[in-house]
């Protein structure tokens, strides 16, 4: 069964170019725009992170700790909520 069994041409995907140039161009355009969007979002995400780091650095020690505590409590609450639902 694992022998050299040539696949019939109709089972293969058609890779002929230029059958419908307009549609092919439109499809490419869509792919390119998606890539640009993805790259742009990655940059924005990174900038957001840098901004957040800067903001945290500018806080005082006490402020940072307060923020952490708040975050931890929120996390704990969510965890407990989730447990309630599952049971």
């Amino acid at each position: 069964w694992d022998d050299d069994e040539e696949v019939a041409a109709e089972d293969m995907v058609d890779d002929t170019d230029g059958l419908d140039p307009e549609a092919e161009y439109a499809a490419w355009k869509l792919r390119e725009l998606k890539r640009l969007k993805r790259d742009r979002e990655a940059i924005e995400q990174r900038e957001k992170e840098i901004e957040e780091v800067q903001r945290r650095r500018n806080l005082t020690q006490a402020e940072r700790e307060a923020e952490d505590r708040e975050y931890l409590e929120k996390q704990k609450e969510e965890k407990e909520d989730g447990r309630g639902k599952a049971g």
Partner: protein
Amino acid sequence: MTHRADASSALDNRGYAGPLIRGANPITLIETAVRDRITESLYWKEQCFGLNAATLLDRAVDLSYIGGTYGVGMRPTPFLCLAFKLLTLTPEKEIVLEYLNMGGEEWKYLRALAAFYVRLTFEPVDIYTTLEPFLTDARKLRRRRKEGYVLMHMDEFIDELLTKDRSCATSLWKLPGRQQLEDLDMLEERVSPLQAELDELDEMEQDQDGDPRNGSESGASPLVRSSSSEG
């Protein structure tokens, strides 16, 4: 080094004296298990024996699909065998660029093969500058999967090589991100041919909102920046 018709000098693990890619024998860029499957395959033994950088083209123009391994037996595709052959030959950069540009214009599978080789062997900055122009190549490529074939496009394959860490049964060595190289001033920002159109769209949106988006202006994303430089 004397030229050998077979790849025995590259595959000899008692000692290797050929050219290095990033300090290692280039064939190690292909995983060991896949490497063994390649050298045991019929295509390798029958079609790749004694090829050089010129005669390899005869095989490359006959390629009809890309891919890594296929079937239950995980047999290597001719595409992967030829990529492996290229790694044992390590042709000069000019030759590879010739495959990619001139040859690739006519034979799309040759371009795909050269692009794969470029991703494995070139330096990071060169990989981006060499491969990115082909993100505009919308030609169709047939790709052999484990079972059956799928359709993809050259630009998708190039994008995969630039962003993914695995392609064609091969783990691609870690390429630094484009953004990272831009920050180090090693790479210019990529300008897509659609950039102008995109900027127009952006401006239209902004006009409609009547909101100058003062928040994002300080963020200075490159897309916003280039639109302001145009106006």
